[in-house]
Protein backbone atom coordinates (compact mmCIF):
# COMPACT_ATOMS: atom_id res chain seq x y z
CA UNK A 1 0.00 0.00 0.00
CA UNK A 2 1.07 3.55 -0.58
CA UNK A 3 0.52 5.60 2.54
CA UNK A 4 0.98 9.35 2.65
CA UNK A 5 1.69 10.57 6.16
CA UNK A 6 1.34 14.30 6.77
CA UNK A 7 3.02 15.73 9.84
CA UNK A 8 6.49 14.73 10.96
CA UNK A 9 6.09 15.03 14.70
CA UNK A 10 6.54 12.04 16.96
CA UNK A 11 3.36 10.36 15.72
CA UNK A 12 4.15 10.85 12.04
CA UNK A 13 7.75 9.80 12.47
CA UNK A 14 7.02 6.53 14.26
CA UNK A 15 4.08 5.83 11.99
CA UNK A 16 6.23 6.20 8.87
CA UNK A 17 8.95 4.08 10.41
CA UNK A 18 6.59 1.26 11.34
CA UNK A 19 4.90 1.33 7.95
CA UNK A 20 8.23 1.07 6.17
CA UNK A 21 9.22 -1.85 8.37
CA UNK A 22 5.99 -3.60 7.41
CA UNK A 23 6.90 -3.18 3.77
CA UNK A 24 4.59 -0.38 2.73
CA UNK A 25 5.45 2.45 0.41
CA UNK A 26 5.48 5.62 2.45
CA UNK A 27 5.84 9.35 1.84
CA UNK A 28 6.06 11.71 4.78
CA UNK A 29 5.33 15.43 4.48
CA UNK A 30 6.79 17.80 7.04
CA UNK A 31 6.85 21.53 6.43
CA UNK A 32 9.63 22.33 8.89
CA UNK A 33 12.78 21.92 6.82
CA UNK A 34 15.18 21.09 9.60
CA UNK A 35 12.80 18.56 11.11
CA UNK A 36 12.27 17.07 7.65
CA UNK A 37 16.04 16.77 7.11
CA UNK A 38 16.47 15.15 10.51
CA UNK A 39 13.85 12.50 9.72
CA UNK A 40 15.25 11.96 6.24
CA UNK A 41 18.67 11.22 7.70
CA UNK A 42 17.14 8.48 9.79
CA UNK A 43 14.60 6.84 7.57
CA UNK A 44 15.67 7.83 4.08
CA UNK A 45 14.55 10.01 1.26
CA UNK A 46 10.82 9.51 1.61
CA UNK A 47 10.48 12.87 3.29
CA UNK A 48 8.96 15.80 1.45
CA UNK A 49 9.87 19.10 3.10
CA UNK A 50 6.68 20.91 2.21
CA UNK A 51 3.36 21.87 3.76
CA UNK A 52 0.95 19.00 3.25
CA UNK A 53 -1.99 21.38 3.40
CA UNK A 54 -0.95 23.10 0.22
CA UNK A 55 -2.69 21.65 -2.82
CA UNK A 56 0.36 21.90 -5.06
CA UNK A 57 2.56 19.90 -2.72
CA UNK A 58 -0.09 17.31 -1.97
CA UNK A 59 -0.20 16.70 -5.71
CA UNK A 60 3.58 16.50 -5.92
CA UNK A 61 3.66 13.98 -3.11
CA UNK A 62 1.52 11.67 -5.23
CA UNK A 63 -1.63 11.92 -3.19
CA UNK A 64 -3.73 11.03 -6.23
CA UNK A 65 -2.36 7.50 -6.10
CA UNK A 66 -2.26 7.13 -2.31
CA UNK A 67 -4.30 4.32 -0.79
CA UNK A 68 -4.33 6.00 2.58
CA UNK A 69 -3.65 9.52 3.76
CA UNK A 70 -2.96 9.90 7.47
CA UNK A 71 -3.06 13.48 8.76
CA UNK A 72 -1.28 13.48 12.09
CA UNK A 73 -0.14 17.05 12.64
CA UNK A 74 -0.76 18.72 15.98
CA UNK A 75 -3.39 21.06 14.54
CA UNK A 76 -6.94 19.87 14.03
CA UNK A 77 -7.72 22.40 11.32
CA UNK A 78 -4.72 21.23 9.30
CA UNK A 79 -5.68 17.59 9.69
CA UNK A 80 -9.22 18.34 8.59
CA UNK A 81 -8.10 20.17 5.47
CA UNK A 82 -5.52 17.54 4.55
CA UNK A 83 -8.16 14.81 4.74
CA UNK A 84 -10.79 16.79 2.86
CA UNK A 85 -8.36 17.71 0.11
CA UNK A 86 -7.16 14.11 -0.10
CA UNK A 87 -10.68 12.74 -0.20
CA UNK A 88 -12.48 15.20 -2.42
CA UNK A 89 -9.73 16.63 -4.56
CA UNK A 90 -7.41 13.66 -4.97
CA UNK A 91 -9.90 10.81 -4.55
CA UNK A 92 -7.96 9.05 -1.85
CA UNK A 93 -10.04 6.06 -0.73
CA UNK A 94 -9.17 6.20 2.95
CA UNK A 95 -8.38 9.20 5.12
CA UNK A 96 -7.39 9.15 8.75
CA UNK A 97 -7.17 12.23 10.97
CA UNK A 98 -5.70 12.81 14.38
CA UNK A 99 -8.18 14.92 16.36
CA UNK A 100 -6.93 16.73 19.41
CA UNK A 101 -10.12 18.47 20.51
CA UNK A 102 -12.67 15.68 21.00
CA UNK A 103 -15.44 18.16 20.26
CA UNK A 104 -14.22 18.32 16.67
CA UNK A 105 -14.98 14.65 16.07
CA UNK A 106 -18.57 15.21 15.01
CA UNK A 107 -17.63 17.90 12.51
CA UNK A 108 -14.80 15.86 11.01
CA UNK A 109 -17.01 12.83 10.61
CA UNK A 110 -19.78 14.90 9.15
CA UNK A 111 -17.41 16.39 6.61
CA UNK A 112 -16.35 12.97 5.40
CA UNK A 113 -13.11 12.07 7.16
CA UNK A 114 -13.11 8.27 7.21
CA UNK A 115 -11.40 7.56 10.48
CA UNK A 116 -10.67 9.66 13.53
CA UNK A 117 -8.09 9.01 16.16
CA UNK A 118 -8.44 11.14 19.24
CA UNK A 119 -5.66 10.64 21.77
CA UNK A 120 -7.49 12.97 24.12
CA UNK A 121 -10.60 10.83 24.06
CA UNK A 122 -8.61 7.63 24.46
CA UNK A 123 -6.93 8.93 27.58
CA UNK A 124 -10.23 10.27 28.87
CA UNK A 125 -11.80 6.88 28.29
CA UNK A 126 -9.02 5.25 30.18
CA UNK A 127 -9.40 7.62 33.11
CA UNK A 128 -13.17 7.30 33.13
CA UNK A 129 -12.91 3.58 33.58
CA UNK A 130 -11.40 4.15 37.01
CA UNK A 131 -13.64 6.81 38.40
CA UNK A 132 -17.36 6.76 39.08
CA UNK A 133 -19.13 8.68 36.38
CA UNK A 134 -22.70 9.50 35.76
CA UNK A 135 -22.25 9.35 32.06
CA UNK A 136 -22.22 6.75 29.38
CA UNK A 137 -18.77 5.33 28.97
CA UNK A 138 -17.48 4.99 25.45
CA UNK A 139 -15.60 1.76 25.16
CA UNK A 140 -14.87 1.66 21.47
CA UNK A 141 -15.89 2.95 18.08
CA UNK A 142 -16.91 0.26 15.65
CA UNK A 143 -17.30 0.09 11.93
CA UNK A 144 -16.07 3.35 10.53
CA UNK A 145 -16.97 5.24 13.64
CA UNK A 146 -20.69 5.06 13.11
CA UNK A 147 -21.32 2.70 15.97
CA UNK A 148 -20.15 2.98 19.51
CA UNK A 149 -19.77 0.36 22.15
CA UNK A 150 -21.12 1.92 25.31
CA UNK A 151 -21.20 0.99 28.96
CA UNK A 152 -23.76 2.38 31.38
CA UNK A 153 -23.15 1.89 35.08
CA UNK A 154 -26.54 1.82 36.80
CA UNK A 155 -26.33 3.86 39.96
CA UNK A 156 -29.06 4.91 42.34
CA UNK A 157 -31.41 7.20 40.52
CA UNK A 158 -31.19 5.28 37.28
CA UNK A 159 -34.66 4.80 35.86
CA UNK A 160 -33.62 1.35 34.59
CA UNK A 161 -33.18 -0.18 38.05
CA UNK A 162 -35.83 -2.80 38.73
CA UNK A 163 -36.92 -2.84 35.12
CA UNK A 164 -36.16 -4.99 32.12
CA UNK A 165 -35.15 -3.86 28.63
CA UNK A 166 -38.66 -4.58 27.33
CA UNK A 167 -40.00 -1.93 29.75
CA UNK A 168 -37.64 0.75 28.48
CA UNK A 169 -37.84 2.71 25.27
CA UNK A 170 -34.61 1.73 23.65
CA UNK A 171 -33.83 3.94 20.67
CA UNK A 172 -33.92 2.43 17.20
CA UNK A 173 -30.59 1.27 15.94
CA UNK A 174 -29.41 0.57 19.45
CA UNK A 175 -29.11 -2.73 21.23
CA UNK A 176 -28.51 -3.60 24.88
CA UNK A 177 -26.81 -6.92 24.76
CA UNK A 178 -25.00 -7.75 27.96
CA UNK A 179 -24.96 -7.02 31.63
CA UNK A 180 -21.99 -7.26 33.94
CA UNK A 181 -23.00 -8.10 37.49
CA UNK A 182 -20.44 -8.94 40.17
CA UNK A 183 -17.80 -9.23 37.52
CA UNK A 184 -19.76 -11.80 35.50
CA UNK A 185 -21.02 -10.95 32.05
CA UNK A 186 -24.33 -12.43 30.97
CA UNK A 187 -26.53 -11.76 27.96
CA UNK A 188 -29.17 -9.15 28.60
CA UNK A 189 -32.56 -10.55 27.57
CA UNK A 190 -35.71 -8.51 27.07
CA UNK A 191 -37.00 -9.68 30.47
CA UNK A 192 -33.77 -9.51 32.47
CA UNK A 193 -34.40 -7.19 35.43
CA UNK A 194 -31.56 -4.75 35.91
CA UNK A 195 -30.20 -3.99 39.36
CA UNK A 196 -28.29 -1.15 40.92
CA UNK A 197 -24.59 -1.61 40.28
CA UNK A 198 -25.11 -3.43 36.99
CA UNK A 199 -23.01 -2.43 34.05
CA UNK A 200 -25.08 -2.55 30.91
CA UNK A 201 -23.25 -2.90 27.62
CA UNK A 202 -24.91 -1.42 24.59
CA UNK A 203 -24.05 -0.92 21.00
CA UNK A 204 -25.62 1.83 19.00
CA UNK A 205 -25.38 4.79 16.73
CA UNK A 206 -24.14 8.05 18.08
CA UNK A 207 -27.50 9.70 17.63
CA UNK A 208 -29.04 7.28 20.13
CA UNK A 209 -26.92 8.42 22.97
CA UNK A 210 -29.09 11.14 24.41
CA UNK A 211 -32.07 8.82 24.68
CA UNK A 212 -29.94 5.98 25.97
CA UNK A 213 -28.54 8.28 28.61
CA UNK A 214 -32.03 9.24 29.70
CA UNK A 215 -33.13 5.60 29.95
CA UNK A 216 -30.09 4.14 31.68
CA UNK A 217 -28.46 6.96 33.61
CA UNK A 218 -31.30 9.40 34.12
CA UNK A 219 -31.46 13.12 33.62
CA UNK A 220 -28.02 14.71 33.76
CA UNK A 221 -28.45 16.19 37.23
CA UNK A 222 -24.79 15.76 38.14
CA UNK A 223 -23.51 18.03 35.42
CA UNK A 224 -21.94 20.37 37.91
CA UNK A 225 -19.81 17.76 39.59
CA UNK A 226 -16.65 19.40 38.31
Amino acid at each position, binding site marked *: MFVLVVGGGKVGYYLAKELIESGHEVALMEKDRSRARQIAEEIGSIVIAHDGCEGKYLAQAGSNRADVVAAVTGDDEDN*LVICQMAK*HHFDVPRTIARVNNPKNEALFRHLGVDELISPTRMILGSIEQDIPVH*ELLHLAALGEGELELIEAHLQSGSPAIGRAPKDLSIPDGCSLFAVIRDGVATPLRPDTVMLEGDKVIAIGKQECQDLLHEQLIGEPEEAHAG
Partner: protein
Amino acid sequence: MKIVIVGCGRVGASLAEVYDTAGHEVIVVDSVTSAFDRLPSTFGGSAIRGDGTDEDVLRRAGADGADVFLALTEGDNRNVMAAQLANEALGAGRVIAKINDPVRATAYAELGIATLCRTGLMMDAVAEYLGLPKTDLPGMLAPTGHHPGGHHDDAGLRTTPLPLPNSLGGAAVASSASPASPSSVSSAVPASQPTATQEV
Protein backbone atom coordinates in the same frame (compact mmCIF):
# COMPACT_ATOMS: atom_id res chain seq x y z
CA MET B 1 -27.97 41.63 9.58
CA LYS B 2 -25.89 39.72 12.07
CA ILE B 3 -22.34 39.63 10.73
CA VAL B 4 -19.60 37.54 12.34
CA ILE B 5 -15.99 38.21 11.41
CA VAL B 6 -13.26 35.82 12.53
CA GLY B 7 -9.84 37.43 12.32
CA CYS B 8 -9.41 41.08 13.20
CA GLY B 9 -6.61 41.93 10.79
CA ARG B 10 -6.68 44.86 8.41
CA VAL B 11 -9.44 43.46 6.26
CA GLY B 12 -11.47 42.05 9.14
CA ALA B 13 -11.27 45.23 11.19
CA SER B 14 -12.07 47.46 8.22
CA LEU B 15 -15.09 45.39 7.26
CA ALA B 16 -16.22 45.38 10.89
CA GLU B 17 -16.05 49.15 10.96
CA VAL B 18 -17.94 49.54 7.71
CA TYR B 19 -20.75 47.15 8.66
CA ASP B 20 -21.01 48.56 12.17
CA THR B 21 -21.32 52.07 10.80
CA ALA B 22 -23.97 50.84 8.39
CA GLY B 23 -26.01 49.70 11.38
CA HIS B 24 -25.46 45.93 11.31
CA GLU B 25 -24.90 43.75 14.35
CA VAL B 26 -21.19 42.95 14.13
CA ILE B 27 -19.30 40.34 16.16
CA VAL B 28 -15.52 40.15 15.72
CA VAL B 29 -13.54 37.17 16.99
CA ASP B 30 -9.76 37.03 17.26
CA SER B 31 -7.41 34.92 19.36
CA VAL B 32 -5.26 37.93 20.18
CA THR B 33 -6.71 40.80 22.18
CA SER B 34 -4.35 43.37 20.73
CA ALA B 35 -5.85 42.73 17.29
CA PHE B 36 -8.90 44.68 18.46
CA ASP B 37 -6.74 47.80 18.57
CA ARG B 38 -7.43 47.99 14.85
CA LEU B 39 -11.08 48.69 15.55
CA PRO B 40 -12.02 52.34 15.79
CA SER B 41 -12.98 53.75 19.17
CA THR B 42 -16.48 54.29 17.82
CA PHE B 43 -16.99 50.57 17.13
CA GLY B 44 -20.29 49.50 18.65
CA GLY B 45 -20.23 45.76 17.99
CA SER B 46 -18.81 42.91 20.06
CA ALA B 47 -15.15 41.97 20.14
CA ILE B 48 -14.52 38.50 21.48
CA ARG B 49 -11.16 36.96 22.19
CA GLY B 50 -11.08 33.28 21.42
CA ASP B 51 -10.29 30.57 18.92
CA GLY B 52 -12.59 30.96 15.93
CA THR B 53 -12.30 27.27 15.10
CA ASP B 54 -13.79 26.31 18.47
CA GLU B 55 -17.52 25.75 18.24
CA ASP B 56 -18.05 26.67 21.89
CA VAL B 57 -16.27 29.97 21.46
CA LEU B 58 -18.33 30.84 18.41
CA ARG B 59 -21.58 29.96 20.13
CA ARG B 60 -20.72 31.96 23.20
CA ALA B 61 -19.82 34.86 20.98
CA GLY B 62 -23.36 34.70 19.64
CA ALA B 63 -22.41 33.48 16.16
CA ASP B 64 -25.40 31.13 16.03
CA GLY B 65 -27.62 31.94 13.11
CA ALA B 66 -25.41 34.66 11.67
CA ASP B 67 -26.58 36.05 8.35
CA VAL B 68 -23.02 36.52 7.21
CA PHE B 69 -19.91 34.74 8.47
CA LEU B 70 -16.47 35.83 7.28
CA ALA B 71 -13.37 33.78 8.12
CA LEU B 72 -10.45 36.11 7.52
CA THR B 73 -7.58 34.94 9.72
CA GLU B 74 -4.06 34.49 8.41
CA GLY B 75 -4.46 30.71 8.38
CA ASP B 76 -6.13 29.15 5.37
CA ASN B 77 -7.02 26.04 7.30
CA ARG B 78 -8.36 27.91 10.30
CA ASN B 79 -10.60 29.81 7.91
CA VAL B 80 -11.74 26.60 6.26
CA MET B 81 -12.59 25.01 9.56
CA ALA B 82 -14.32 28.08 11.01
CA ALA B 83 -16.36 28.47 7.83
CA GLN B 84 -17.41 24.83 7.81
CA LEU B 85 -18.42 25.05 11.48
CA ALA B 86 -20.50 28.11 10.63
CA ASN B 87 -22.08 26.30 7.71
CA GLU B 88 -22.72 22.96 9.31
CA ALA B 89 -23.20 23.65 13.00
CA LEU B 90 -24.15 27.28 13.45
CA GLY B 91 -26.66 27.65 10.66
CA ALA B 92 -24.97 30.68 9.18
CA GLY B 93 -26.50 32.16 6.04
CA ARG B 94 -23.69 33.22 3.77
CA VAL B 95 -20.20 32.07 4.60
CA ILE B 96 -16.93 33.24 3.08
CA ALA B 97 -13.47 31.86 3.86
CA LYS B 98 -10.26 33.55 2.84
CA ILE B 99 -8.06 30.85 1.32
CA ASN B 100 -4.86 32.08 -0.24
CA ASP B 101 -3.85 28.74 -1.72
CA PRO B 102 -5.57 28.71 -5.13
CA VAL B 103 -5.91 24.92 -5.15
CA ARG B 104 -7.67 24.88 -1.80
CA ALA B 105 -9.75 27.93 -2.74
CA THR B 106 -11.13 26.12 -5.78
CA ALA B 107 -11.57 22.83 -3.94
CA TYR B 108 -13.57 24.39 -1.10
CA ALA B 109 -15.82 26.35 -3.42
CA GLU B 110 -16.71 22.97 -4.86
CA LEU B 111 -17.32 21.73 -1.31
CA GLY B 112 -19.84 24.43 -0.54
CA ILE B 113 -18.16 27.54 0.84
CA ALA B 114 -17.53 30.82 -0.90
CA THR B 115 -13.81 31.43 -1.03
CA LEU B 116 -11.67 34.51 -1.36
CA CYS B 117 -8.16 33.97 -2.75
CA ARG B 118 -5.81 36.90 -2.30
CA THR B 119 -3.25 35.29 -4.59
CA GLY B 120 -5.57 35.30 -7.59
CA LEU B 121 -7.10 38.69 -6.79
CA MET B 122 -3.73 40.40 -6.51
CA MET B 123 -2.19 38.74 -9.51
CA ASP B 124 -5.13 39.79 -11.62
CA ALA B 125 -5.03 43.33 -10.26
CA VAL B 126 -1.36 43.56 -11.20
CA ALA B 127 -2.00 42.08 -14.62
CA GLU B 128 -4.82 44.50 -15.25
CA TYR B 129 -2.73 47.51 -14.28
CA LEU B 130 0.12 46.38 -16.50
CA GLY B 131 -2.20 45.49 -19.34
CA LEU B 132 -1.03 41.88 -19.29
CA PRO B 133 -3.22 38.80 -19.61
CA LYS B 134 -5.06 37.76 -16.47
CA THR B 135 -4.40 34.49 -14.69
CA ASP B 136 -6.89 31.70 -14.51
CA LEU B 137 -6.54 31.62 -10.72
CA PRO B 138 -9.59 31.99 -8.51
CA GLY B 139 -10.39 35.35 -6.90
CA MET B 140 -13.75 35.50 -5.19
CA LEU B 141 -15.54 32.22 -5.84
CA ALA B 142 -19.16 31.42 -5.07
CA PRO B 143 -19.87 27.92 -3.79
CA THR B 144 -20.58 25.55 -6.64
CA GLY B 145 -21.39 22.38 -4.73
CA HIS B 146 -21.85 20.87 -1.34
CA HIS B 147 -19.59 18.59 0.61
CA PRO B 148 -20.65 15.00 0.04
CA GLY B 149 -20.58 14.44 3.75
CA GLY B 150 -19.68 11.54 5.93
CA HIS B 151 -21.57 8.43 6.76
CA HIS B 152 -24.69 10.00 8.14
CA ASP B 153 -25.67 13.02 6.12
CA ASP B 154 -29.30 12.54 6.95
CA ALA B 155 -28.79 12.83 10.64
CA GLY B 156 -27.03 16.13 10.17
CA LEU B 157 -24.23 17.25 12.38
CA ARG B 158 -24.53 16.38 16.00
CA THR B 159 -24.06 19.72 17.58
CA THR B 160 -24.15 18.28 21.05
CA PRO B 161 -20.72 16.87 21.65
CA LEU B 162 -20.29 13.42 23.08
CA PRO B 163 -20.25 13.58 26.84
CA LEU B 164 -17.00 14.46 28.49
CA PRO B 165 -16.24 14.54 32.20
CA ASN B 166 -17.62 17.80 33.51
CA SER B 167 -14.31 18.94 34.78
CA LEU B 168 -12.93 18.85 31.28
CA GLY B 169 -15.88 19.34 29.01
CA GLY B 170 -17.26 22.66 29.97
CA ALA B 171 -14.22 24.88 30.12
CA ALA B 172 -14.92 28.35 28.90
CA VAL B 173 -12.47 29.67 26.39
CA ALA B 174 -13.94 32.93 25.25
CA SER B 175 -13.14 35.96 27.26
CA SER B 176 -13.93 39.53 26.73
CA ALA B 177 -11.69 42.01 25.06
CA SER B 178 -9.43 43.67 27.57
CA PRO B 179 -10.50 46.99 28.95
CA ALA B 180 -7.53 48.49 27.13
CA SER B 181 -9.33 47.95 23.85
CA PRO B 182 -11.48 50.70 22.42
CA SER B 183 -13.91 51.73 25.09
CA SER B 184 -16.96 50.84 23.11
CA VAL B 185 -15.93 47.24 22.59
CA SER B 186 -18.58 45.34 24.39
CA SER B 187 -18.05 42.37 26.60
CA ALA B 188 -17.73 38.89 25.21
CA VAL B 189 -21.01 37.39 26.22
CA PRO B 190 -24.23 39.26 26.58
CA ALA B 191 -25.23 39.11 30.23
CA SER B 192 -28.55 37.52 29.41
CA GLN B 193 -27.05 34.68 27.43
CA PRO B 194 -26.88 31.44 29.37
CA THR B 195 -23.52 29.77 29.34
CA ALA B 196 -23.23 26.18 28.27
CA THR B 197 -22.78 24.89 31.79
CA GLN B 198 -26.16 26.21 32.84
CA GLU B 199 -28.08 23.81 30.63
CA VAL B 200 -28.94 21.55 33.53
